[in-house]
């Protein structure tokens, strides 16, 4: 197999070529988004680098290095590491749930030495890797068969279930929808999605009964924010006031009253978009969303140019994940979705999410660098 492959295969890519193949434009866009994050965090702290903005910049720097390293690793390594990574992340999720049970309450963190890790962030990437790995190994006909759809469904649902009990509704939604998007592009038949959709609607009452009180309240508040304007609806109402009062061009840098006077909840994490948009207006929001859109378009083009199925699925999975992050977060702060606790990638304060997003971007760029690598369907 080795010799026949050599006939068709292009010459091995040298190191300089690899560096050249890194999407530097994409890297620039990502850095610009992180720069907006630094700006917004500086403002959220009332015009100070402490406690968030400076740390965010430093974290981005190290995550940036991680991304470049990941981008230069050959996809075959990821192909072989997909399963181990997935299994480790599932074990960590179980561990976190168990510790959470003991700690009486929501638990999302795992403390390993000096590090605090959010396993659900790693699991997001792990699910993409393992599903891409799975469909890479299938033939076209197999991919559209029902039986072959069950294993990836299980891979998704195991993670979704473990994340749900933490409870972290936002991440669960993201894994479910991101996984679904991957199954869709991998060629699962449309009727199965329709059946799943109908099944999901049928299961809604069961899901409702399993939800925590605060989750139910959030959903009800989302459906009617005026139901409890001083309680659970307070956050979303204040966020809408902040965004709306920003107007076309915003109140000006460091002049956002809603954030500086603390009317905004979680202004440095989930509601960072609101903080930014209050000061920079719709113009600023369109710039930020435009940069994210650019990332997504880039992701699609990388997926299309990949010569191997693993790369295609990996690139598209990462792109879908980024899109979901952005969409769920911004739709949530604008009152279009319930408040589920999803950060805005590269902008919100928070280390693990930043690392996992940059790791994913590294995978994405890696697909471009090794777009014409030869990957056997089976090992």
């Amino acid at each position, binding site marked *: *197999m080795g010799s026949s492959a050599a006939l068709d295969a292009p010459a091995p890519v040298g190191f300089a070529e690899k560096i050249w193949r890194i999407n530097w434009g994409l890297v620039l866009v990502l850095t610009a988004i992180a720069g907006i994050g630094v700006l917004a965090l500086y403002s959220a702290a009332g015009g100070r680098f402490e406690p968030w903005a400076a740390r965010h910049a430093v974290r981005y720097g190290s995550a940036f290095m991680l991304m470049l390293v990941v981008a230069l690793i050959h996809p075959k390594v990821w192909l072989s590491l997909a399963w181990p990574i997935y299994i480790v992340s599932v074990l960590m999720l179980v561990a976190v749930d168990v510790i959470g049970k003991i700690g009486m309450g929501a638990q999302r963190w795992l403390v390993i030495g000096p590090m605090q890790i959010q396993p659900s962030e790693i699991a997001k990437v792990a699910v993409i890797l393992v599903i891409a790995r799975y469909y890479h190994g299938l033939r076209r006909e197999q991919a559209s068969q029902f039986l072959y759809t069950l294993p990836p469904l299980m891979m998704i649902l195991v993670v979704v279930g473990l994340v749900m009990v933490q409870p972290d509704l936002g991440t669960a939604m993201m894994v479910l929808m991101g996984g679904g998007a991957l199954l869709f592009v991998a060629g699962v038949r449309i009727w199965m999605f329709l059946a799943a959709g109908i099944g999901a609607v049928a299961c809604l009452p069961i899901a409702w009964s399993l939800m925590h009180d605060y989750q139910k309240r959030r959903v009800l508040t989302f459906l009617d924010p005026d139901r409890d304007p001083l309680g659970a609806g307070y956050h979303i109402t204040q966020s809408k*006031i902040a965004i*709306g009062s920003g107007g076309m061009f915003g109140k000006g840098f460091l002049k956002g009253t809603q954030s500086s006077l603390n009317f905004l909840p979680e202004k440095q994490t989930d509601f960072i978009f609101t903080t930014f948009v209050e000061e920079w207006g719709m113009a600023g929001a369109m710039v930020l*969303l435009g940069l994210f859109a650019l990332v997504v378009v880039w992701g699609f083009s990388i997926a299309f140019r990949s010569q191997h199925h693993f790369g295609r699925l990996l690139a598209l999975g990462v792109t879908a994940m980024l899109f979901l992050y952005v*969409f769920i977060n911004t739709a949530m702060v604008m009152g279009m979705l319930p408040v589920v606790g999803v950060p805005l990638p590269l902008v919100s304060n928070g280390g693990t999410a930043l690392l996992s997003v940059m790791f994913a971007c590294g995978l994405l760029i890696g697909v471009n660098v090794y777009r014409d690598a030869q990957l056997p369907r089976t090992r």
Partner: protein
Amino acid sequence: MKNFRKGDGERSGLFTRRALVLGGAQAVLMTALAGRLYQLQVVETDRFATMAEENRINMRLLAPSRGQIFDRSGVPLAVNRNNFRAMATSDRGRGADLLVERLDQIFSLGEAEKVRLLRELRRSRSAQPIVVRENLGWEEVARLEFNAPDLPGVFIDLGQSRDYPEGELMSHIVGYTGRVADEDLAGRDDPVLQLATMRFGKKGVERSLEDNLRGRAGAVQVEVNAVGRVVRELDRTEGQPGANALLTIDLDIQRFATEKMKEHKSGSVVVLDVVTGDVIAMVSTPGFDPSTFARGITQTEWRDLLDNPERPLHNKAIAGVYPPGSTYKMVTALAALEAKVIDPWTRLPCVGFLELGSIKFHCWLKGGHGSTNVTEALACSCDCFFYEAARRAGIDRVSDMAQRLGFGKVSELGLPGESAANQPTRAWKQEKIGKPWQHGDTFNLGIGQGYMTATPLQLAIMTARIANGGYEVQPNLLLAKATPREELAPPAVRTKPTAPSLRLNPQHLAIVRQGMSDVVNGSLGTANALRVKQPELTFAGKTGTAQVKRITEREREMGITQASLPWHLRHHALFVCYGPVDNPRYACAVIVEHGQAGGATAGPIGRDVLVETMKRDPSRRTDRFKKMASR
């Protein structure tokens, strides 16, 4: 290998199609986000901008400094002193329970206070802060500051609270202030009254001059954060302090009269300037300590005050009603003289009683006074003379004269709680009792008994109107008012009444005054013992004893006397007087509740107070004010 490539081509075709569908869906969702942004930031931006400003900006009213109250020579009676208060703004009622628990740990509030705070925190729409506790000491201020991080929305405010330096002495006149009640808001739309720190006059001058003393609110626009803490001040308009008031009261005479009343359980003294109507002194004993109200009265203190049989909260000078007894005889005399049913020389007989049908009307002197004219009858207080004089004049004329002299109606003094007492008329009896007026009723009225009642203030007004030559003076407590204290000054001295004349025959008034003079200065006078030797201090008066319980013929035979009755059934002792006798300036009315005999109990108090007033002559002296004011 070929299979591999071919298969991949097929897979890639499907992938591309599906990916384009996915990309399309994402584009649709992105468009939805942009649409939502447009809706929030362009279409509805004005509404949200207003809401953001409402969040951020708070209008807070600044309580004006309340006007201070002084006596006529400038001695402070009601002043403001600094008061450190703990205030709280509720974060729209959130966390109120926790906040109250923490405040309880600092101040040990007690259950009732906790309930009040919770109620007010929930009710207050974050606009106006509520009062947690007043009059904080330094230690409490320090403890609060130390715990500030745990107490969101709590802050210390320097305000003013009322202080009454003369305390009980001036309690009935000055009154006190309290929290604004719902009934205080009626007819007043002053927004400052909504302030939790605002105090409102409840009694006395604090109440009657409330609209003068209050002043106008200032306002401050502040930027607040989400927990209601003020971040900075945006705009400020200063209010206007309330007007300061100079009262007509002379504190020295007020104190002197109060001292004189000390030996009796309860009673009242009123001293009027007969020319101006100025109230020089107005005593009602016992009084109360107004500082208990200023710091917030407790339930037990309030009950004790209400249950006291001597009624310390009751201003007896204006709200105590008593039969005027013989002090009413001047009214009967004037009514009869003006009606020309008697003249100054008419002599009427007295054998100790007068019979009307089968009923005997007794004179206080068992053997009778023999034949007396009106002057002599007043001097010896002959009842029979006035039974007959009243009969001749008739109820209508007597009532009319009494009303002209001030009985039966509320004066223009303005203090809350003043009683009109009762000046009976034919119509009144028909309406209230349902029976027609009887001759016997006229007899009783002629000597100030029966249905007749009067307040000490009304007795003083009557005396003043007789003494000043028949001018309808009205009692008055406010000498001057001015917003800057420097402009506060008493008006020029007046020697002639400006009140309208009652158009009484001056000769008749002179006759009645002669009778009152003879009460004190004549050899037959009932208060002959009170006579003053110095010519410039000579005065005229009239004693009175008002029946509380009628001692029946049988009881009298059983030897029951006034002194043997329990205190609350004994007669009231009354005395009215004016002086100096030649050129009257001051009138005084005294009632000693259950003091038994007017001449013996009330008389000496009246004399001492009147003589003291004449000596000090407060109406003609303004130099003392200048001395006080310049201090």
